[in-house]
């Protein structure tokens, strides 16, 4: 990997030897795994997962094929918003462990060729943060200008209220300082004032602190909202981009192989702005989540036709050379339909409003398996789509074994229950008294830990876990999944989504049946005339591609991945 512009086709893991240069673009090929420290493994027996517990399970993640862990907030917090209300940026939440544990986690992950990134909230802090306490008590002191204060609640009227269920205004009056403070999210989360150079510097200090500890990057929460300007909606402002470029320059200067992953729940056309200038290959964030794709995958399969996916991918602009989308099926939040509510920008919304099934899903808090009625064929199809559509896939912990959820738990806790390791007490997650668990384990007859757990699925080669692992392995054999161009193929059957991923040496053809019924498809593969497709799961050779349309038949919710090896005789004409 001496020449980073020509990624080799070997496995992603870097050795982290000091002597050997690392691949600065590792994130373009990586498989990410979102892990909830609280819910993964409890090493101390107190009923709550911790960093040491996660370290004990790194071998499992390595076995699964994970390249990078994404940790939800690990910082000290009063936990009024799942840790997204940080009260000290430089401390680990005590129930998770301490900084020593964290450094150990990074070291152990690196030893296994894996990386670790963590959530970071730059936009706001908890109202318990010492900065805010100082700011409200001492308006003229060093922190007096750290937050956005106003004598009235009049400014920035054009900014929407994001948490409409709980908040009525973006301003809240503080009786101590006698002024209003600005908050785009909960009222206990005051926004930092990025117009203050001291805030800009303080946040860079925070970033450097963790990067120096070895962290491989950040998922940057809520970044469109850093700045406020009168007469705008206070989102995606140019000042915000300027500051991100400053952050990126600092990262590039001191930590060249780390990654900044933007959480900007916006339209792809706006999100690309967060990659920065294409001429430089991208000079803001390395990665950004592709939010609108996920609900459309669900919708396309519901409708048994590809257009919801085709349409959003066709609308997705090209991104700078060294950038990558993060794509996902499920995560710790609800199935986000925020990106389908803007009628002006996307007439696709009309389809959602008309589809009561999807409407019923707005804000639904469910895991992948229950969303798909625990239908193994559909779960496999979704996994195949996640691992083959353009972008780096992000798996959500537990979805690899088809874990269920508990809709009776409040808020988003239903999808944050303990990881199911074994059929033993507490699902093998903790040896505490069951009553001490931070959340009860899933116990229903279908998804309960006695039926669904890692141990049982590791023993059975036909399990979903083995399927997922196998698919990840195939993906890792073909860097083209991460790096290649994406071309949708012509076919007249609306239930079939077919595409080719290609990059100089490597070509993969993916054919997906979005219908529950068996379907035929005739693909125009003239470009590959003479090539013999090889199916990726079993290595079976299929008939050579000729001049006539290539006929395939797929079972309901079936899919194929083929490699299209270059042959001497292939007619590479267009």
């Amino acid at each position, binding site marked *: 990997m001496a020449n980073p512009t020509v990624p080799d086709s070997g496995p992603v893991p870097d050795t982290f030897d000091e002597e050997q240069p690392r691949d600065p673009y590792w994130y373009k090929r990586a498989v990410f795994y979102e892990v909830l420290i609280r819910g993964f493994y409890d090493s101390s027996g107190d009923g709550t997962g911790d960093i040491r517990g996660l370290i004990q399970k790194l071998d499992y993640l390595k076995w699964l094929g994970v390249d990078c862990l994404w940790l939800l907030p690990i910082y000290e917090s009063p936990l009024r918003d799942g840790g997204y209300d940080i009260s000290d940026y430089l401390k680990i939440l005590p129930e998770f462990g301490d900084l020593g544990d964290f450094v150990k986690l990074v070291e152990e992950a690196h030893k296994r060729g894996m990386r670790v990134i963590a959530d970071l909230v730059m936009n706001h802090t908890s109202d318990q943060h010492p900065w805010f306490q100082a700011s409200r008590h001492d308006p003229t002191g060093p922190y007096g200008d750290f937050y956005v204060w106003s004598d009235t609640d009049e400014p920035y009227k054009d900014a929407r209220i994001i948490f409409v269920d709980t908040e009525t205004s973006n301003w809240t009056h503080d009786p101590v300082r006698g002024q209003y403070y600005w908050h785009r999210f909960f009222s206990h989360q005051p926004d930092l004032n990025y117009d203050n150079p001291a805030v800009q510097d303080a946040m860079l200090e925070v970033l450097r602190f963790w990067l120096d500890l070895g962290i491989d990057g950040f998922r940057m929460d809520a970044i469109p909202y850093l700045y406020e300007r009168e007469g705008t909606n206070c989102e995606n402002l140019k000042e915000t981009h300027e500051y991100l470029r400053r952050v990126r320059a600092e990262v590039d200067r001191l930590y060249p192989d780390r990654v900044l992953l933007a959480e900007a729940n916006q339209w792809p056309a706006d999100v690309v702005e967060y990659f920065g200038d294409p001429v430089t290959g991208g000079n803001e964030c390395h990665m950004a989540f592709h939010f609108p794709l996920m609900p459309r995958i669900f919708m396309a399969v519901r409708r*048994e036709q590809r257009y919801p996916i085709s349409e959003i991918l066709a609308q997705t602009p090209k991104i700078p050379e060294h950038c990558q989308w993060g794509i996902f099926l499920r995560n710790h939040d609800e199935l986000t339909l925020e990106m389908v509510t803007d009628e002006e920008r996307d007439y696709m919304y009309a389809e959602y409003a008309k*589809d*009561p099934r999807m409407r019923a899903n707005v804000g639904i808090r469910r895991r992948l398996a229950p969303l798909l009625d625990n239908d193994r064929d559909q779960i496999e199809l979704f996994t195949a789509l996640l691992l083959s559509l353009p972008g780096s896939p992000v798996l959500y912990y537990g979805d690899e074994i088809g874990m269920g959820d508990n809709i009776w738990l409040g808020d988003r806790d239903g999808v944050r229950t303990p990881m199911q390791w074994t059929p033993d007490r507490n699902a093998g997650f903790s040896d505490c008294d069951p009553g001490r668990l931070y959340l009860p384990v899933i116990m229903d007859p279908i998804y309960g830990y006695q039926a669904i757990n890692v141990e049982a699925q590791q023993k059975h080669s036909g399990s979903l876990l083995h399927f997922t692992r196998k698919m990840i392995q195939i993906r890792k054999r073909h860097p083209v999944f991460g790096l290649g161009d994406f071309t949708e*193929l012509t076919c007249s059957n609306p239930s079939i989504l077919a595409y080719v991923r290609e990059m100089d040496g490597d070509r993969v053809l993916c054919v997906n049946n979005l219908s529950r019924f068996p379907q035929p498809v005739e693909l125009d593969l003239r470009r590959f005339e003479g090539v013999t497709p090889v199916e990726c799961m079993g290595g079976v050779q299929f008939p050579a591609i000729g001049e006539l349309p290539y006929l395939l038949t797929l079972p309901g919710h079936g899919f194929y991945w083929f490699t299209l090896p270059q042959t001497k005789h292939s007619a590479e004409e267009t």
Partner: protein
Amino acid sequence: MTTSLQALLAGWISGQRWFAGKGRAIDELTVISDIELTDDDPGMRHLVLAVRQGENVDHYQLLVGLRAELPDRLRHVEIGPVEFAGRTAVAYDGLHDTALTRLLLRAMSGGEDFGGLRFRGDAGLRTDLRSLVVTAEQSNTSLVFGDIYILKLFRRLNAGLNPELEIVSALAERGSPHVARPYGHIELEGTTCAILQEFLAGASDGWSLATTSVRDFYASPEGLGAADVGGDFAAEAERLGAATAEVHQELAAAFPTGELDRDDLVLLATGMHKRLEHALSEVAEMAPYAEGIMRVFDALAMLGRAETVQRVHGDYHLGQVMRTTDRWVVLDFEGEPGQPLAERRALSSPLRDVAGMLRSFEYAARHLLVPEAGAAEPAAGSDQALEEARAAEWAAHNRAAFMNGYATGGTDPRDHAVLLRALELDKAVYEVLYEARNRPSWLRIPLGSLEEYRQP
């Protein structure tokens, strides 16, 4: 040109799927035009044949490829050995030879003339694309170049300007997003021989999409309505309605319009009555519906208000519309097939197209209810009633959505209910007759949709 060539062609043409005179003897075959496009090897000539069968004379066009030796990949389109200007060669259907078809693109791009055969097209055409013969078509032959262009070659030539070319060119000029962009054409002395258009890669036709939705609905648990199932088509139907209205507005702006006055409507109703009577005389199952249908035709005759007419599609149904990644596109503005050109270009009520599409929804809703050949007839009883009820629900749901979409264009078809229903019923009468003659098991489709007109 030798007589043996004519004998050879007569034998060959009668085996082609696009040959319209199948099953009848060819009395005479004459080559009435023979134009050399290239004398290389492979060579190509453009022929027009006059084929007489009894009183009837049809003109067919052929692009004959000529090679000294025929490679294996072209064997399946061989015509036979011939002699041209002292040179012996094997003749074959040249459209299948990718070494020849680029010549057509080059000639269009260059605006070349070969005698009376004129090639016209955008100067910026890509001429390096490989062609593929589309196998699905019955009466014409289409070539897809790369995945960019499609060249539709009319096999049976109708004298004059083809309405598809006329309409698509006019609408494209107006910037309509709902037609496939024209890039060129070939004509022989004023008769359109071929049209080159934008190929809608990644598109699927409305029929496939609608039946996907129907299939999903039928497989969903009982008790879920057509609007509740995941495969609901209404959003697509509504968008299709809006696109249809836009196309009609563009047609009205680009071509002359007129009015149907009282007398015209009476005449129209008379024709409908006649066709109904004819169907009744042939299809006994039609009888219980007759009175209800006649009442609608009578209402049309007494409508007493003028209805506007304009250029329309003429043969509008789900198979004529394509859903591309971001829009609906309307294909085949050729009017009703089998009609003379003048009639296909005649002005008509735009509601005729609306009626055609509504009928198509009825077909989409019901075609899965027809038992496939060889299957046992379903036991009579409640199942069939339930199936019919679900079909009616799907059709009503999507018909309403289509008309809602159409109404966004300014004209709500439901404000012209009498004419619309009469047009729809006229079409249904035609369908009944057609199914009774050709596919008796499908008779259930048009009859099932006429339930509200049935009298015990």
